[in-house]
């Protein structure tokens, strides 16, 4: 009743959620095994053991554009074309409708 059966496999979110919570509990348990006796406010809490300066958090924020810069760069050929198609010009919007209508008519005529 609770899960769904697609004919190929089954999906039961309650079982999944229980499993997920169990894994989270195990992870927290492992984390709790860590040492608590480190010295606060000394070099032990610094990020870099090598003694580098820690940058200000404002300088570390990855801005929206930068996050997938590499992916966009790798697919720049596709993106250049896809962008060029989204011209924002109303005449092109109409042209796309007419072209699609033409294709549908051809398919219906051929498929009849």
């Amino acid at each position, binding site marked *: 009743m609770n899960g769904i059966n697609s004919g190929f496999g089954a999906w039961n979110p309650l079982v999944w959620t229980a499993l997920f919570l169990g894994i989270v509990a195990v992870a927290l348990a492992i984390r709790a095994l860590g040492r608590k006796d480190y010295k606060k406010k000394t070099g032990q809490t610094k990020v870099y053991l090598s003694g580098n300066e820690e940058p200000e958090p404002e300088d570390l924020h990855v801005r929206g554009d930068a996050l997938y810069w590499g992916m966009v760069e790798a697919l720049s050929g596709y993106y250049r074309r896809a962008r060029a198609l989204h*011209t*924002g*010009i109303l*005449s092109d919007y*109409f042209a796309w409708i007419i072209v699609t209508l033409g294709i549908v008519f051809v398919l219906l005529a051929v498929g009849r």
Partner: protein
Amino acid sequence: MGNFPFVVAMLLVILGLYTLLFKRNLIKLVIGASLIETGVNLFLVALGYRTAGIAPIYTYAPPALADRMVLPTPQALTLTSIVIGLATTALLLSFAVVIHRHYGTLDVREVKELKG
């Protein structure tokens, strides 16, 4: 001769589509949409017409003329469609006026801040 109204309607629709695709001014685009609408209305009215037909009013109509009445449904459709067309045209034109105020132009190639 019987198909003449349909040919005219089709020509109007094609002229309207041409206007939408190739004219550059937003006001002209609105005119194009209006042309298509006129063509469609003509098509609908022509659908219901009978040769030498009379108005579809049943009161006092002699029974002999009953099969010469034009079809009432397409006329009702056309009337509704004209009203809707008026609303869309008015709305489009008022948007065009405000666009002209903001962008300083009505060229469709320059009204494209929303792209990409």
